[in-house]
């Protein structure tokens, strides 16, 4: 903190963090060097330009796009968006995606939390083996198992059924979930458990009253990861859902873009509407995602 004795660094942007990150006297953040902001703005431009192109492109007509592919809408057309939003194809796919993602998330969180609790806080024969088994699941990507999975789901009669997507997704999301949750649950001090036991709380009561609230950050992180993973998943629905009525959004986007391949503007509108839910969802939970990852990494 002794900023006064710090050797003067060569560049203004290279200030030692101890100095550069100090808050001003009124607790306000200092602006810091402009170079940092230039880089940050450039970075954001690169990251967002393609997304912006898709969204803005949806406000143009095909004629505008053909004559000037990289231009601005002139005039702005809302027709493409209105068409997509008033048709029932888009909404059906939103609902399918929401059901699949919601059920996957709930399933993963409930099953993962239960298993993690047992692994983290019980001593039993084969506990290490059990953890290793789940952890080994990280080695099995869905890509490898996709064909037998398709055959299994077909045998179970779940083709074109969202549960044919949900169950495998829960299975494949469990390894990450358990690996993130176990350290969270282990980190809860045993003194808490002892105190709860003295107060007459059973182990399962302890689970409900103490573990669940305390592991909420981890739970929310794995929940969000599972939700986004399911919302965006493509390979499994591609194999399982062949009937257009059961399409989730990713399949819908692909079907739409090949069906209307000449109607670029409409494809752009459909595509941007399809990414909207994930973006909204993410911006709502961004703090949790980053915070959860931080927690997981810190242990």
């Amino acid at each position, binding site marked *: 903190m002794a900023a006064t004795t710090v050797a003067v660094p060569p560049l203004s942007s290279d200030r030692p963090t101890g100095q550069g990150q100090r808050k001003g006297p009124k607790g306000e953040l200092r602006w810091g060097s402009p170079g940092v902001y230039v880089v940050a703005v450039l970075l954001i431009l690169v990251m967002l330009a393609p997304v912006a192109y898709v969204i803005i492109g949806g406000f143009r007509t095909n004629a505008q796009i053909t004559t000037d592919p990289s231009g601005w809408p002139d005039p702005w057309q809302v027709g493409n968006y209105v068409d997509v939003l008033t048709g029932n194809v888009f909404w059906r796919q939103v609902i399918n995606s929401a059901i699949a993602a919601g059920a996957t998330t709930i399933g993963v969180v409930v099953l993962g939390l239960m298993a993690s609790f047992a692994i983290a806080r019980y001593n039993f024969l084969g506990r290490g083996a059990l953890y290793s088994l*789940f952890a080994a699941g990280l080695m099995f990507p869905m890509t490898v198992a996709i064909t037998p999975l398709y055959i299994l789901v077909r045998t179970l009669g779940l083709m074109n059924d969202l549960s044919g997507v949900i169950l495998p997704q829960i299975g494949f999301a469990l390894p990450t979930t358990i690996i993130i949750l176990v350290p969270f649950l*282990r980190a809860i001090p045993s003194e808490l458990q002892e105190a709860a036991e003295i107060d007459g709380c059973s182990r399962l009561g302890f689970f409900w009253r103490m573990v669940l609230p305390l592991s909420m950050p981890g739970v929310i992180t794995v929940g969000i990861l599972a939700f986004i993973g399911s919302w965006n998943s493509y390979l499994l629905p591609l194999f399982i859902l062949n009937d257009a009525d059961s399409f989730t959004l990713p399949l819908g986007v*692909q079907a739409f873009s090949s069906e209307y391949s000449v109607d670029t503007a409409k494809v752009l509108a459909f595509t941007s509407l399809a990414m909207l839910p994930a973006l909204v969802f993410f911006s709502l939970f961004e703090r949790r995602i980053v915070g959860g990852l931080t927690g997981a990494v810190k242990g």
Partner: protein
Amino acid sequence: MTSTRASSHPDGSPVDLPVGEGGTPAVSPSPRRRRRRTGWGERLEIAVLTGPALLVFLSFVIFPVLMAAYYGFFSWEGYGPPTDFVGLKNYETILTDPLFHDALRHNAFIVVFSLVLQGPAAVLIALLLNRRMRGQSIIRVLIFVPYVISEVVVGTGWSLILQSTGALNDLLEQIGLGGLARDWISDPDIAIWTLMGIITWKYIGFAVILFLAGLQGIPQELNEAAAIDGASYWQVQRRITLPLLAPTLRIWAFLSIIGALQLFDLVYIIWGQYVASTAGTSTMATYMVSFGRNAGSYGYGNAVAVVLFLISLVVALVYQRFVLRRDTEGAITGGVR
């Protein structure tokens, strides 16, 4: 993924643990441990807690993986039980098929360049964002946006932008760089670089977020102490931050390698199943779907899956053995201390 028993990290957690593989929980060696209720009640609890997860995991993850290994020995079109046992013939075909060699080469290329392109850039961005600055949180959100968008949306959007009459070429034309315009997607000389560009754009946000999380775990006092000793900003980053970030870097590299080996969605969506091999972007996974399910040869597809899995497994084990070994449980699972 080997032994993750807590005994391997003594500073791990304050609770339970020592009892190795030793059977009944029994008497714990540590005096501060509470006495346990052993017996059926507890076993029942464990069974109820782990049972459902285990059931779903075994039936929808482990069982299909084992079945893939089994089906791989058959010539089978996917209907009825497989009967035409062909031994290792599928594997022979795979290993001698030049198209598979191409796919494998592309995968190797993607693995290497994912690390080379994303790693250093993501570290720099994370260092930048780790400085306290205005609008920091909004920048973090925005950088993560491509990662959150689905591969299908990314693929559809980029292929519209990059097609030969698309926005990028038009933009280059307008700023007087028309000479740089290319057929980004179908020119075999540059298609794989196009793919790398899209991959970098899509996945760098994940690396940045992971590194930022790792950076926040590094005590500020260390940086301050080094600064007092006269270290410049870059010296601090090089001598203190990077070494302390190493566990996170190693975990990220692991995830990146595995992801690159199994890349499917983006290639399949942008290049489709046939163009990918002529444009030079096919991967093992697109090869598997093209020549397995799409060709109606389920036995063959499964054999490809097995090869893909074995390659990933060997890479993963080698990586675990020689790189991750240093991190007791790895950054994600609670290492960095």
